């Protein structure tokens, strides 16, 4: 038993289960999918994959316009949603920096959207935004606006997805930045105010520079997560109308699982993974230093 108490043995015994689990359940599937991505393998009619080299990748990158469309939608979605979340979250966090009655209550309240299952969020909004019988259009018409085809118009539907994502995740950005701003000493504002700095100047030249590391980290986390957009699209629009809201995750799911084109599906999922991982590397290298 003495050996078991040995330092080196202990540290490996503690670490190896996790490493082993991740290698067998995270890395091995990725390697498997990489090997499948070089084959032609229609799961519905074929039992054995057929080696075709880079054919799937060529097919996706050079002749699959739907893939590029999904990628373009995803990129547009990510940039719009994250920018809005950051803008609203940051300004709210700065605005609410002083104590006021009900602040803690408000903070708890803001946990609700991100605590909801994403698919439930999609359905909450689907009820509200139904173009004919949803409450949103009824209210809009009562005030005198015309109906908005939230989920059925090619130009509006992508923005609807952005809006719901903003609803779901702005509170997260707010809470993170709020915590960062709260950790600043109050004397900072005193000193700036005595010197005659305006509220906006304090924000622009003192608060933002100090909390920039947190802003960057939170932004990267949001970008990586937003790229995986699936539930909102699945629930609200089912990627419609006319595939206008088809995200990369959704297209990979359709190709690989629904149509069971395993070769093309895995190739696409690898392109997708590489995109997400290259963004993740920025975040990971930051976390490594921090």
């Amino acid at each position: 038993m003495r050996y078991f108490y040995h330092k080196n043995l202990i540290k490996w015994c503690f670490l190896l289960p996790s490493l082993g689990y991740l290698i067998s359940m995270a890395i091995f599937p990725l390697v498997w999918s990489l090997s499948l991505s070089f084959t032609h393998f229609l799961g519905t009619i074929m039992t054995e994959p057929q080696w075709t080299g880079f054919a799937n990748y060529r097919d996706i990158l050079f002749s699959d316009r739907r893939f590029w469309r999904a990628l373009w939608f995803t990129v547009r979605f990510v940039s719009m949603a994250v920018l809005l979340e950051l803008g609203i979250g940051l300004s709210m966090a700065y605005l609410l920096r002083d104590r006021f009655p009900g602040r803690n209550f408000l903070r708890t309240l803001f946990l609700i959207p991100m605590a909801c299952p994403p698919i439930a969020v999609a359905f909450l909004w689907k009820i509200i935004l139904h173009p004919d019988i949803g409450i949103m259009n009824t209210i809009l018409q009562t005030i005198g606006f015309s109906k908005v085809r939230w989920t059925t118009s090619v130009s509006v539907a992508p923005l609807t997805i952005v809006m719901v994502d903003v609803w779901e995740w702005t509170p997260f950005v707010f809470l993170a930045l709020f915590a960062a701003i709260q950790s600043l000493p109050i004397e900072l504002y005193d000193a700036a105010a005595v010197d005659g700095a305006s509220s906006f100047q304090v924000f622009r030249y003192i608060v933002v520079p100090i909390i920039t590391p947190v802003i960057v980290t939170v932004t990267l986390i949001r970008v990586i997560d937003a790229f995986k957009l699936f539930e909102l699209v699945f629930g609200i629009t089912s990627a419609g109308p006319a595939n206008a809201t088809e995200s990369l995750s959704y297209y990979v799911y359709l190709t690989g699982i629904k149509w069971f084109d395993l070769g093309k599906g895995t190739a696409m999922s690898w392109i997708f993974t590489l995109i997400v991982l290259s963004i993740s590397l920025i975040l990971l290298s930051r976390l490594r230093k921090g």
Partner: protein
Amino acid sequence: MVDKIKKRQGFKDLERVRAKRKHGSLIKRTIFWTIIIVFTIWTLFPIFWAVVTSFKYTGDAYKPTFIPWAQFKPTLQGWYSAFVIEGERTFRSLRNSILIASLSSAIVLFLGALAGYSLARFVFKGWKNKDIAVWILSNRMTPQVAVLIPYFLLMRGLRLLDNPLAIIMGHTVLNLPLGVWLMIDFFRDLPQDLEDAALIDGCSYLGAFFKIALPLVAPGLVAVYVLSFIISWHEFIFVLVLGFNKAITIPVVIAGSLTTKGLDFWRMASVSLIGIAPVVILAVLASRFLVRGLTLGAVKE
């Protein structure tokens, strides 16, 4: 620092400045409270509307009426449908959700605490601790759909399709990187002196871990467990692909509330609320840790 400032002449300035910031002009205060109220309504309205809708008859569900009894006649048909007519399916999925989330989180907690302790307290020569930790975390960033196809084939090969075990395995992979990463952080926050003292007194490394470090890091354990429970409860894609009937969880039932019988808003509302309520309560209870966990430890409250 405050005392020093107080002693100076500038103290009166400071008083004035602080008072001004606290009270502000009437216009400023109005804007301030308007923003708060608008944002609160914006945040709560979808939930509120789902609650109202879930108590409505089909015909009322499409009308802009908000107050039960006064504006519309409330009914329990949405909840009756969810808990009685479709009750078997609802309870099966709730049972699965609880089973899958609690078991996979328990595995994450167990493996995560061990690995976190190992990486926080011991030195790995050759590979650096930081590199191992970052590599583990990098697994969190891979999109779920990337491993979906191999998972499906693997589970089909193991005859685990439509078996909660397959989903537990999937959710464990999903949460383990975050679990290890956060546990490293929590163990680092503990002073090492106590364990060192125990080791000098003849305690074994195992004893130091179980008797001293683990009890002290209990809040961290709770945080990791709750966070992975919530993420597992939310997870939709794995369940959609790996479960059909026996192993479905609540998100799949929510998604199914649309396809089964058309546009019954009250049904969609009640089922969504069943999926929302448990995790929202959990999140509110664990609110202290949630932001820290979701920002990967970058923000500490």
